[in-house]
């Protein structure tokens, strides 16, 4: 199992804050994004763009970052704090 979190515009568009996914073997952020994009039109629109950032275990990640069972993965737009 992995936990996938969504924040801000992504959370609102998907109407989903968290998602538990089965993970039988290690994957990558890029592969997970492709898998999520296949879930439907709104997912496709969000994950095809370049405006989705990812974190694995609360550290910034890129498409090559590995994901292992038990990890916490998050997707969110570029930060606008401060």
């Amino acid at each position, binding site marked *: 199992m992995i936990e996938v979190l969504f924040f801000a515009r992504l959370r609102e568009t998907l109407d989903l804050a968290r998602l538990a996914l089965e993970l039988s073997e290690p994957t990558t952020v890029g592969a997970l994004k492709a898998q999520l994009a296949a879930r439907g039109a709104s997912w496709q629109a969000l994950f095809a763009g370049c405006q989705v950032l990812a974190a694995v275990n*609360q550290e*910034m990640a890129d498409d090559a970052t590995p994901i292992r069972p038990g990890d916490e993965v998050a997707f*969110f737009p570029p*930060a606008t704090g401060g």
Partner: protein
Amino acid sequence: MTDDVRILTTGLDPAALTTELVNDRAHSQGALVTFVGMVRDLSANPVTAMQLEHYPGMTEKSLAAIIGRARARWPLGRVLIAHRVGLLHPGEPIVFVGVTGGHRREAFAACEFLMDYLKTEAPFWKKEFTPDGERWVEAKPSDCEAAQRWQAAQQQQ
């Protein structure tokens, strides 16, 4: 040295934080630079309220990492970052960054560095409420460029 990262759901008081840094006898320093970011109150672009969302856990880690990078570049005394989350109104403080140091040059540089990285790397997101509806604030390219400026300066050293 003590680092402080405070995520506040209410009551960010720049005056009280300033006093805390001025009165810090344990790390007595000659220079203090503070930055306060506030919800803008522009009549041409009325924002009635702002919602600040963040990623609890990652927020604190990323701010601590940014402070670590600043300390690696400059000798600093106290570093204190406070950031509001939740609902804010025009004129209210969103963020406070305070840095003390032995000399003003590094206190200014570190405070600006911390703000540049906070804006691009710390997982906060703003949604604005206006008479025409609500909208997520879009990240500005200039914030990314600002963070890249420090990386270029580092490579030149």
